[in-house]
């Protein structure tokens, strides 16, 4: 990032987009190139430190940690992306309606946003995910239910300012219908801060999702989701620290890449 040729914003954005793209492809296709079965229990080789055969060691029942990380990558990363996409779409939709139509609808929707934001987010996410029951889908639902409000606020304020611009009046005068104005004129012109905000949220969504899995609310074992792997590993921190360190580092690395990507969009 500090190298001279990456200094222009465009190249930086291109560079980090490619990195993120590679990461996504790797997460999806990685399982095709695994040396071991990530679910295979091998009691002859439990808690092995990293070695030639098992590059990142094995866990407490002899499963290959590297293969488990590769297998879990898609779940950890794509779930977070789904959450970001859903919250972005729902929040933008509600915020746009609220800002465009104003009046009682605006008041109602914004009070709803206030009420959602009256909960400390982690408390509410854990409670909703926990009540819905263990599972990746339920975690995604819980995080979406809590997460959309920020986008709604932002979209509303964007639409409020775009609405007053001359080109909107021009579109109206030239006979465009309300949905046309909303979709073709207002939305494209209010989208950019929302996209920036969404890209900045990918990292924190990965962290929250891993956190829910870590609490045992996300992906059920034996599936190797990264947060769940950390939770399994922590019982044996004393004898097999690698079972904790590598999943932790994997999360750290991916969140850092997403952070860089978000920064480069800004």
């Amino acid at each position, binding site marked *: 990032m500090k190298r001279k040729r990456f200094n222009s914003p465009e190249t930086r954005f291109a560079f980090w987009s490619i990195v993120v793209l590679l990461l996504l492809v790797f997460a999806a296709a990685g399982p095709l190139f695994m040396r071991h079965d990530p679910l295979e229990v091998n009691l002859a080789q439990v808690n092995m430190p990293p070695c030639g055969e098992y590059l990142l060691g094995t866990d407490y029942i002899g499963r290959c940690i590297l293969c488990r990380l590769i297998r879990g990558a898609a779940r950890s990363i794509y779930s977070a992306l789904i959450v970001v996409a859903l919250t972005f779409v729902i929040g933008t939709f509600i915020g746009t309606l609220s800002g465009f139509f104003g009046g009682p609808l605006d008041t109602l929707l914004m009070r709803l946003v206030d009420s959602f934001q009256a*909960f400390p987010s982690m408390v509410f996410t854990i*409670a909703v995910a926990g009540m*819905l029951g263990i599972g990746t889908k339920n975690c995604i639902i819980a995080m979406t239910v809590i997460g959309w409000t920020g986008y709604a606020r932002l979209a509303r304020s964007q639409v409020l300012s775009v609405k007053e611009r001359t080109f909107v009046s021009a579109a109206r005068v030239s006979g465009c219908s309300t949905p046309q104005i909303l979709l073709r004129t207002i939305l494209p012109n209010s989208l950019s801060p929302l996209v920036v905000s969404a890209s900045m949220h990918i990292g924190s969504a990965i962290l929250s999702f891993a956190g829910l899995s870590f*609490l045992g609310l996300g992906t059920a074992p034996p599936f190797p989701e990264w947060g769940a792997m950390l*939770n399994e590993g922590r019982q044996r921190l004393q004898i097999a620290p690698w079972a904790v360190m590598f999943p*932790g580092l994997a*999360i750290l690395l991916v969140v850092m890449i997403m952070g860089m990507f978000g920064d480069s969009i800004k």
Partner: protein
Amino acid sequence: MKHYMIKRIIWLVPIMFVVSIFSFMLMYLSPGDPVEIFLSKGGDVPAPAAVEAMKERLGLNEPIWKQYTTWITNIMHGDFGSSITSGRPVLSEILKYFPNTLRLTFMSIGLTLLISIPLGILAAVKENKATDNLIRVVSFINSAMPGFFVALILIYIFSVKLRLLPTISTGNASGIILPTLALTICLSASYVRQVRAAIIKEMGEEYIRMARARGIREQSILLGSALKRTMPAILTIAGINIGHLLGGTAIIEIVCTYPGVGRQAVRAIADRDYPMVQGYVLLMAVIFVVVNLIVDVLHAHADPLVKRRILIENRRSRRTQA
């Protein structure tokens, strides 16, 4: 100012109403019948008579709106119901662990401010120099670390390798060290960044140039003027974080086996202890909202610009009303 506060407090009423409905409805999110799930936890199918009896006892056969009104009326009288698992009142169960969370919250925020303000100032003073870059890289990595990973690394270093601290904390003096450190490390990254950005912005202001021109020492400009002006913003962030942390940082509390409300709440969720979960979520939302209100009011008091904006807004809204 008074007008602003009263308006904010009145707005709380409808919001708290919706919040209480959300908290109450949490129970209906779970698939299947809550009583049946609770009774069949041992693995066997519960007898229909037992299910009926428990439903009757908890008032679950009433229509939902009636259940809600009973629940909220009881809460108005300070009765949050009883925990299904322990049979003890929900409120006293939560209050038992709350002091621990309170202590953890304030120690973490205090330590975070203590560490990140000097670091932020240092980074701002050395803007774009090696020190600044180092602080920035470290805080960037730090912000990408999951809290539980930080906590586990700390446990590994201090409890497993150095054997300095107990792995299992009991809420006593040494047990609070690890969760405090973990939270501080998690929080500091964003504080350092905020302090740095705020100080850099402040140092570019006209009045700082004036002060320099008048020959005031750089140090007293930095600490006396720039830092003083940025403090309200920093304290506001701290206030919002306090609101979040008081809800219990379930993950850190669980990793460090610290007896706080967050850990208790996750246990209640796992046990499907509905009265506990409802009471916990509602109480935490109330605390969160009240803390945020206090923070906003204090911020408005401390920051003349915000105070002026509120006054102008008030005047404008009064004019439109008239």
